[in-house]
């Protein structure tokens, strides 16, 4: 059995294919960590204001964050939202006076009657003479201790760590700021699995398509550092391991934020200094966040295209349950091969070679050895009017070259229908998991009212796919996508 593993980290040159970007008007710089509030998603940017999305895919302006300045962050603590921001913008020629402030709101929805920020209070500052410019703050609520930390600073001097009171958002009395890195911008602190991670942005910002901005990371067993990179170099000496750089027609990723959607399902938010497909504008980026040997790595932007979908359980391919059509081949006795005879390549089996043998109505799906045959190739296409979820659009999954679409059934099984109709059981949410595999879930189970967030395509047996509850700890929930 040949195991087929998708190559997950390869940089794909897909300039001819449609990259799936956030839709709507996702124009922002330095987006704060995406926060959900009453079913909507919010992120705030530099200069005030922010983006709102009803589904996590289509964004519009309209977020309200007073105070101006650079690079805010936001977090839900208890029933309230804490917003931290730098009131200034960093500067040149002597003006590195910065101030970090926090404020609370009961909701992030500016339409809500409860929407009202508390008065902003200063938690840190730089006076312009220090080797620090107090802008670009981020928040970390330590899940082990319940203590609230903030990092701030920019390329001008050091990145500093302070402790805040999670009840008031004020600086903890007597807390002395501590240097944890140098020469970063837009830092962010996260915690995972015994490690604290400090993410920063290196390179050149604000230079459009030529911006070299890139997101780097160091990690530490203690929130106070030292934060070391993968070669053991301290971030206080400029160390950092790459998380995301330019590629795939976007340049200048900056201002990391991590959002955990489900166990093993994480995204990172950032902005791209320039999205070539969006006229070089600075836009919100959302990428799958992967973890590789204890290091965060950005997953790829998902592209529409034709894929083999193979199970993580056995490596079998998701395919139509139709007869396997043999390819006719002039076989030679290997002992009589004439080495001087020219090689004639064998053509791939084509759709038209086999489609006539398939039934015309609904066809079941199953899993089997991957043989790169037409009944094993699925075209995945975002459906514009179907909306999306946090980080991706709903897609149809059709047999390449046909409109035959994968569908969920009301009894939690799979089949295909001859024609894609746009109904919810034919729309799929595809998310890359932290280990690089994917989970694939129908938008709705027929007969159910609610949008489905539980049932995914699942290996009941090696050959038998079904729909079952997502379980990150089982390879039955996971699939690999290999572009054809």
């Amino acid at each position, binding site marked *: 059995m040949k195991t087929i593993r998708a190559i997950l980290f390869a940089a794909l040159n897909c300039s001819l294919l449609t990259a799936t970007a956030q839709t709507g008007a996702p124009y922002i710089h330095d987006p704060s960590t995406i926060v959900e509030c009453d079913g909507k998603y919010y992120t705030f940017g530099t200069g005030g204001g922010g983006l709102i999305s009803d589904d996590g895919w289509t964004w519009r302006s309209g977020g309200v964050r007073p105070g101006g300045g650079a690079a805010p962050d936001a977090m839900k603590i208890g029933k309230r939202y804490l917003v931290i921001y730098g*009131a*200034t*913008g*960093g*500067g*040149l*020629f002597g*003006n590195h*006076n*910065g*101030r970090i402030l926090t404020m609370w709101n009961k909701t992030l929805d500016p339409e809500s009657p409860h929407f009202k920020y508390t008065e902003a209070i*200063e938690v840190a*500052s730089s*006076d*312009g*003479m220090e*080797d620090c410019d107090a802008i670009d703050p981020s928040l970390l609520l330590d899940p082990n201790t319940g203590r609230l930390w903030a990092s701030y600073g920019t*390329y*001008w*001097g050091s990145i500093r760590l302070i402790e805040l009171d999670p009840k008031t958002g004020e600086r903890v009395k007597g807390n002395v700021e501590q240097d944890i890195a*140098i*020469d970063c911008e837009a830092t962010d602190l996260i915690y995972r699995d015994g490690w604290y991670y400090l993410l920063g942005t*290196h*390179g*050149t*910002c*604000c*230079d459009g398509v*030529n*911006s*070299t901005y890139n997101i780097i990371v160091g990690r530490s067993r203690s929130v106070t550092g030292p934060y070391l990179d993968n070669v053991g*170099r301290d971030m206080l*000496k*400029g*160390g*950092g391991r790459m998380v995301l750089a330019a590629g795939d027609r976007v340049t200048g990723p900056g201002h990391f934020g991590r959002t955990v959607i489900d166990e093993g399902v994480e995204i990172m938010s950032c902005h791209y200094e320039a999205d070539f497909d969006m006229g070089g504008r600075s836009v919100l980026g959302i990428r799958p966040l992967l973890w590789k040997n204890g290091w965060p790595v950005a997953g790829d932007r998902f592209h529409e295209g034709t894929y083999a979908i193979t199970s993580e359980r056995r490596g079998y391919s998701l395919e139509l349950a139709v007869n396997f059509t043999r390819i006719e081949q002039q076989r030679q006795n290997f002992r009589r091969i004439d080495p001087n005879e020219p090689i004639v390549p064998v053509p791939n089996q084509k759709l038209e070679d086999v489609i006539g043998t398939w039934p015309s109505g609904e066809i079941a799906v199953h899993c089997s050895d991957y043989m790169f045959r037409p009944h094993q190739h699925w075209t995945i296409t975002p459906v514009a009017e179907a909306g999306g979820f946090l980080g991706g659009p709903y897609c149809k999954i059709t047999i390449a070259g046909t409109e035959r679409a994968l569908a969920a059934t009301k009894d939690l099984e799979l089949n295909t229908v001859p024609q894609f109709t746009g109904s919810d059981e034919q729309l799929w949410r595809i998310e890359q998991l932290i280990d690089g595999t994917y989970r694939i879930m129908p938008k709705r189970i027929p007969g159910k009212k609610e949008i489905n967030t539980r049932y995914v395509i699942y290996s009941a047996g090696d050959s038998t796919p079904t729909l079952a509850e997502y379980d990150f700890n089982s390879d039955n929930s996971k699939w690999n996508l290999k572009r054809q």
Partner: protein
Amino acid sequence: MKTLNLMILLGFPLAITAQNPIIHNQFAADPTARVFNDKVYVYPSHDIIPPKPEPGQNGVRQDWFCMADYHVFSSENLTDWTDHGVILSQEDVQWGNPAGYSMWAPDCVEKNGKYYFYFPDGQKIGRGFGIGVATADSPVGPFTAEPEPIKGVSGIDPCVLLDNDGQAYIYWSGMGIRGAKLKDNMKEVDGELQAMQMPQRPGGNAPQGQTPPAFMVAGQQMEGLPDGFKEGPFVFRRGDWYYLTFPWVRGDTSNGANPTETLAYAMSKNPLGPWDFKGIIMAEHSNRCWTNHHSILEYKGQWYIFYHHNDYSPRDDKRRSPHIDKIAFNADGTIIEVKPTLRGVGVTPANSRIEIDRFSTKSDDVSILFNDTLNTFRGWHATLPSKTSWVRYNDVDFSSVNANGYLTVCVKANANTTLKVRERDAKGKVIAQVPINVVSQMGNFRRDMSGRWLTLTAPLLYLPKGISDICITGEGDSISVDWLQIKKRPEYFSSISSPTASPDEQGFIRRWMILEPIDNPEANSNLLFSFTYMQDNLANPAKLPKPLPNMPRDGQKVKHDKQSLTWHATESNTYNVRLFRFADLLQKATYRVCFWAVTTIECEEDIPNVRLAAGSNGASMWWVEPAEGKTAENDKPVLMLESDRRMVADDGMSNRLTLKKGRNIVRCAVVNGPGLSDFCVRFVDEKGKPVTKYTIKN
């Protein structure tokens, strides 16, 4: 990058540090100060805003004193106060009304390791105030109240004197000022109780024509005190003299006049009098805050008076805050009248925020106003309206800062002007001069910060020695100042004291001869520094400063274009050499410049197969060449770090090279646009481990 926009700090004033009042986050009245274990503890009453009544209830009076619990505060320097939190609440007193809000002025004394806390409270049953005792093993509690109030002590404002012979006396205010001996247990008065008639008050509770009931009273009336309303007795002993001090209304109360309280005193050779009235300690508050209530103690050889004033509640004198001022005595034991100050007491370190609005003295035209009238706890600021205005603040300790330090100040102005901070008085030597540019124009970008709080900095021109006074003056236009602070700067470099040095443990070379920065006005952005730019400008002999000696001397001068530049021997205190701070400390240009640095390393033998490992902010170029036998080949740069660089250790490496036996010259040029320019460099071996077997000779 190095964003090119010009921003400025919008400062908001914050109330910090001590001075008067000494407590900044809550009201606190009637401060009784005591020394326990060489520390001062203040036991005030705790004024609060009266809770609003429940709908349909009368609730508590909204315009009256309201106190539900006690805090205690401690300090070792009388300026930094620690709040130890609630030590007793009205719910904790069995005999008290749990919703009486009548926990008025208390006292606390220590005897045989036990702390006795005396407090008045409204009675649960009956009318009037009782005085109770609560005990604890620590001055900060927790205190446990006795189940009954002290028998025979009805009233308020208890004060306990522990005399030198161990005898304790209690004084209180209730139908005049009374005093009594306390028993050894500190919880009962010594002696017979007397029956006394409650005086008939107009509109009192007793039915017309009936005599009010008698009740039992301990101790004796203090004799020899003047007429007029008296309360709040505080008795202390100094030498042979006992002092009975008390708030006293001395004014004429006829014709509906409502004079307010002074602090007054009487003296006696006996703890229970009779007393000889001496006069005033402190006059009435000038703003008609009706009450004053005080305590007096000696601490580290100095006598202090603690009293109160309604600083944070200017329109409601039932919400008060504690003050401290020094108090002194004449040779005959009488007290010199105290003029209350805002400055208060204690030495203020120059590196803490100096609240200049808590001045010692000022010119008459200077006004002191709240930073935020809606939240008065945010403190005050001083406004200097004219050129002749000044504000003086005494006892600033400058030993906490160094001459490299700088002034930071929170100011507000409506036009461009200058603030001067001087030593001592309005004509004193200038410590720092702060240009306040609220309106400026840079290209198309107009900035108007008039009327907004700004935090500005300025270098120190002069550093007073030890403890001295400061005085701020304006230059014409009005300036408001909230606070100022002198900050220390890191010691980025050391002076060179030995002829040789070694690389540090990680191999970084810290000792360099650095040339003052060469102006490079075109370098607005680090994006300029392409390969071509670096080749054309830094590796081009025609553009280098001349002479570029192999090894310059400290103080050697060179000419470059129109600049006269000096080489400086420097030793960095950190692994990286902070070029920006090198220039800054010399008050040279820091942005849009090019730095040259050279050092000599001497090897006892050839060290082959090493690499020069460097990082720089911004772009840089590096040379390594033997001091003798220079060739065209080894005159080539060994490493170039081009473009918009951040300083990253081991960012770039040279090809493998050999450090020659004898002296080798290591030279670099670093160009800076808008960054905090620095570099770090070391030699590493094949495995990336630092090479340190050489001597640095500069």
